[in-house]
Protein backbone atom coordinates (compact mmCIF):
# COMPACT_ATOMS: atom_id res chain seq x y z
CA UNK A 1 0.00 0.00 0.00
CA UNK A 2 2.84 2.39 0.83
CA UNK A 3 5.56 0.62 -1.16
CA UNK A 4 5.57 3.11 -4.05
CA UNK A 5 5.80 6.16 -1.81
CA UNK A 6 8.54 4.59 0.32
CA UNK A 7 10.49 3.51 -2.75
CA UNK A 8 10.21 6.95 -4.37
CA UNK A 9 11.33 8.65 -1.15
CA UNK A 10 14.32 6.34 -0.65
CA UNK A 11 15.34 6.20 -4.32
CA UNK A 12 15.41 9.98 -4.66
CA UNK A 13 17.59 10.20 -1.57
CA UNK A 14 19.94 7.28 -2.25
CA UNK A 15 20.04 7.49 -6.06
CA UNK A 16 20.63 3.73 -6.31
CA UNK A 17 17.81 1.35 -7.26
CA UNK A 18 19.36 -1.67 -5.53
CA UNK A 19 19.94 0.24 -2.29
CA UNK A 20 16.43 1.69 -2.42
CA UNK A 21 15.00 -1.78 -3.02
CA UNK A 22 16.92 -3.14 -0.01
CA UNK A 23 15.76 -0.32 2.25
CA UNK A 24 12.10 -0.81 1.31
CA UNK A 25 12.38 -4.55 1.92
CA UNK A 26 14.15 -4.01 5.27
CA UNK A 27 11.50 -1.48 6.23
CA UNK A 28 8.64 -3.85 5.49
CA UNK A 29 10.40 -6.60 7.40
CA UNK A 30 10.92 -4.37 10.46
CA UNK A 31 7.35 -3.10 10.34
CA UNK A 32 5.77 -6.51 9.88
CA UNK A 33 7.63 -7.92 12.86
CA UNK A 34 5.94 -5.24 14.97
CA UNK A 35 2.63 -5.16 13.14
CA UNK A 36 0.63 -6.15 16.23
CA UNK A 37 1.80 -3.08 18.15
CA UNK A 38 1.23 -0.44 15.45
CA UNK A 39 -1.98 1.58 15.38
CA UNK A 40 -3.64 1.53 11.96
CA UNK A 41 -3.89 5.32 11.68
CA UNK A 42 -0.17 5.67 12.46
CA UNK A 43 0.96 2.94 10.08
CA UNK A 44 2.05 5.23 7.23
CA UNK A 45 3.98 7.55 9.52
CA UNK A 46 5.57 4.54 11.24
CA UNK A 47 6.66 3.10 7.90
CA UNK A 48 8.23 6.35 6.75
CA UNK A 49 9.96 6.80 10.10
CA UNK A 50 11.34 3.27 9.85
CA UNK A 51 12.35 3.77 6.20
CA UNK A 52 14.02 7.07 7.02
CA UNK A 53 16.15 5.57 9.79
CA UNK A 54 16.91 2.43 7.77
CA UNK A 55 18.02 4.63 4.88
CA UNK A 56 20.26 6.78 7.11
CA UNK A 57 21.87 3.64 8.55
CA UNK A 58 22.52 2.29 5.05
CA UNK A 59 23.90 5.62 3.78
CA UNK A 60 26.29 5.71 6.75
CA UNK A 61 27.36 2.13 6.12
CA UNK A 62 27.88 2.82 2.42
CA UNK A 63 29.95 5.90 3.15
CA UNK A 64 32.14 4.17 5.67
CA UNK A 65 32.84 1.25 3.32
CA UNK A 66 33.32 3.36 0.23
CA UNK A 67 35.32 6.37 1.25
CA UNK A 68 36.75 6.80 -2.21
CA UNK A 69 33.39 7.51 -3.73
CA UNK A 70 33.16 11.13 -4.79
CA UNK A 71 30.60 13.31 -3.07
CA UNK A 72 27.81 13.87 -5.57
CA UNK A 73 27.28 17.38 -4.32
CA UNK A 74 30.73 18.34 -5.58
CA UNK A 75 30.37 16.78 -9.00
CA UNK A 76 29.83 18.95 -12.00
CA UNK A 77 27.31 18.13 -14.68
CA UNK A 78 29.06 17.43 -17.96
CA UNK A 79 26.14 16.55 -20.21
CA UNK A 80 23.22 18.40 -21.63
CA UNK A 81 19.94 18.62 -19.73
CA UNK A 82 17.23 16.80 -21.60
CA UNK A 83 14.33 18.24 -19.67
CA UNK A 84 13.08 20.07 -16.66
CA UNK A 85 12.84 16.84 -14.64
CA UNK A 86 16.49 16.01 -15.17
CA UNK A 87 17.56 19.48 -14.12
CA UNK A 88 15.31 19.24 -11.07
CA UNK A 89 16.76 15.84 -10.15
CA UNK A 90 20.26 17.24 -10.50
CA UNK A 91 19.31 20.11 -8.22
CA UNK A 92 17.75 17.71 -5.70
CA UNK A 93 20.94 15.66 -5.52
CA UNK A 94 22.90 18.78 -4.66
CA UNK A 95 20.80 19.50 -1.61
CA UNK A 96 22.13 18.47 1.80
CA UNK A 97 20.61 15.10 2.82
CA UNK A 98 18.33 16.52 5.49
CA UNK A 99 16.95 19.27 3.25
CA UNK A 100 16.21 16.75 0.51
CA UNK A 101 14.50 14.36 2.92
CA UNK A 102 12.18 16.92 4.50
CA UNK A 103 11.31 18.47 1.13
CA UNK A 104 10.35 15.11 -0.31
CA UNK A 105 8.28 14.14 2.70
CA UNK A 106 6.42 17.39 2.23
CA UNK A 107 5.97 17.49 -1.54
CA UNK A 108 5.79 13.81 -2.46
CA UNK A 109 4.05 12.42 0.59
CA UNK A 110 2.09 15.45 1.72
CA UNK A 111 3.09 15.30 5.38
CA UNK A 112 2.56 18.39 7.50
CA UNK A 113 5.55 19.95 9.23
CA UNK A 114 4.81 18.43 12.64
CA UNK A 115 4.66 14.91 11.15
CA UNK A 116 7.92 15.47 9.26
CA UNK A 117 9.44 16.55 12.56
CA UNK A 118 8.31 13.29 14.17
CA UNK A 119 9.78 11.21 11.34
CA UNK A 120 13.13 12.98 11.25
CA UNK A 121 13.53 13.94 14.89
CA UNK A 122 13.59 17.67 14.11
CA UNK A 123 11.49 20.44 15.61
CA UNK A 124 8.69 21.84 13.44
CA UNK A 125 10.62 25.11 13.17
CA UNK A 126 13.76 23.31 12.00
CA UNK A 127 11.73 21.42 9.40
CA UNK A 128 10.38 24.70 8.05
CA UNK A 129 13.86 26.24 7.97
CA UNK A 130 15.25 23.28 6.00
CA UNK A 131 12.32 23.30 3.58
CA UNK A 132 12.66 27.04 3.06
CA UNK A 133 16.39 26.69 2.34
CA UNK A 134 15.75 23.77 -0.01
CA UNK A 135 13.14 25.72 -1.96
CA UNK A 136 15.39 28.77 -2.23
CA UNK A 137 18.27 26.56 -3.45
CA UNK A 138 16.12 24.75 -6.04
CA UNK A 139 14.70 27.99 -7.32
CA UNK A 140 18.12 29.63 -7.65
CA UNK A 141 19.67 26.50 -9.18
CA UNK A 142 16.95 26.11 -11.80
CA UNK A 143 17.06 29.80 -12.66
CA UNK A 144 20.84 29.55 -13.14
CA UNK A 145 20.41 26.48 -15.40
CA UNK A 146 17.76 28.39 -17.34
CA UNK A 147 20.21 31.19 -17.90
CA UNK A 148 22.89 28.84 -19.21
CA UNK A 149 20.64 27.04 -21.70
Amino acid at each position, binding site marked *: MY*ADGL*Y*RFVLKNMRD*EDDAHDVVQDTFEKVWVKVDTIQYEKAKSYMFTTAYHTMIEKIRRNRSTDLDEADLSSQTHSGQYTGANEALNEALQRLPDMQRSVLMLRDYEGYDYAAIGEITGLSESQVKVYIFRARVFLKEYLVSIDNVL
Partner: protein
Amino acid sequence: MSRINHDNYEAFLLDMVEGTISAADREELVLFLAQHPDLDVDLDGLEFATLDDEGISFPDKESLKKQVYLVLMN
Protein backbone atom coordinates in the same frame (compact mmCIF):
# COMPACT_ATOMS: atom_id res chain seq x y z
CA MET B 1 10.89 39.65 23.53
CA SER B 2 10.94 38.72 19.84
CA ARG B 3 10.51 35.05 19.01
CA ILE B 4 12.18 35.53 15.65
CA ASN B 5 15.96 35.13 15.41
CA HIS B 6 18.70 34.17 12.96
CA ASP B 7 18.07 30.47 13.53
CA ASN B 8 14.35 30.45 12.83
CA TYR B 9 13.44 33.46 10.66
CA GLU B 10 13.30 31.23 7.56
CA ALA B 11 10.52 29.20 9.18
CA PHE B 12 8.47 32.39 9.39
CA LEU B 13 9.39 33.26 5.81
CA LEU B 14 8.03 29.88 4.74
CA ASP B 15 4.80 30.60 6.60
CA MET B 16 4.62 33.92 4.80
CA VAL B 17 5.13 32.34 1.37
CA GLU B 18 2.46 29.75 2.15
CA GLY B 19 0.07 32.35 3.48
CA THR B 20 -0.22 30.76 6.92
CA ILE B 21 1.61 33.42 8.93
CA SER B 22 -0.40 35.32 11.56
CA ALA B 23 -0.71 39.10 11.40
CA ALA B 24 1.38 39.44 14.57
CA ASP B 25 4.15 37.18 13.26
CA ARG B 26 4.14 38.97 9.92
CA GLU B 27 4.61 42.29 11.68
CA GLU B 28 7.41 40.85 13.81
CA LEU B 29 9.09 39.30 10.77
CA VAL B 30 9.02 42.52 8.77
CA LEU B 31 10.55 44.34 11.75
CA PHE B 32 13.22 41.64 12.17
CA LEU B 33 14.20 41.83 8.49
CA ALA B 34 14.32 45.63 8.64
CA GLN B 35 16.69 45.35 11.60
CA HIS B 36 18.88 42.83 9.75
CA PRO B 37 19.41 44.17 6.23
CA ASP B 38 22.45 41.87 5.91
CA LEU B 39 20.04 38.96 5.43
CA ASP B 40 19.03 40.59 2.14
CA VAL B 41 15.54 39.07 1.94
CA ASP B 42 13.27 40.30 -0.84
CA LEU B 43 9.78 39.62 0.47
CA ASP B 44 8.18 40.53 -2.85
CA GLY B 45 10.31 37.98 -4.75
CA LEU B 46 9.41 34.99 -2.57
CA GLU B 47 7.53 32.40 -4.58
CA PHE B 48 8.26 28.68 -4.90
CA ALA B 49 7.26 25.71 -7.00
CA THR B 50 6.67 22.26 -5.50
CA LEU B 51 7.88 18.86 -6.70
CA ASP B 52 5.92 16.31 -8.77
CA ASP B 53 6.18 12.63 -7.89
CA GLU B 54 6.99 11.53 -11.50
CA GLY B 55 5.01 8.31 -11.04
CA ILE B 56 7.88 6.22 -9.63
CA SER B 57 6.69 2.85 -8.31
CA PHE B 58 8.31 -0.03 -6.42
CA PRO B 59 9.23 -2.70 -9.01
CA ASP B 60 9.12 -5.79 -6.79
CA LYS B 61 5.90 -5.87 -4.80
CA GLU B 62 5.74 -9.67 -4.98
CA SER B 63 8.84 -9.89 -2.77
CA LEU B 64 7.09 -7.77 -0.14
CA LYS B 65 4.10 -10.11 -0.16
CA LYS B 66 6.45 -13.07 0.34
CA GLN B 67 8.08 -11.20 3.21
CA VAL B 68 4.73 -10.62 4.89
CA TYR B 69 3.91 -14.30 4.45
CA LEU B 70 7.22 -15.36 6.01
CA VAL B 71 6.75 -13.05 9.00
CA LEU B 72 3.18 -14.20 9.55
CA MET B 73 4.23 -17.85 9.38
CA ASN B 74 7.01 -17.45 12.00
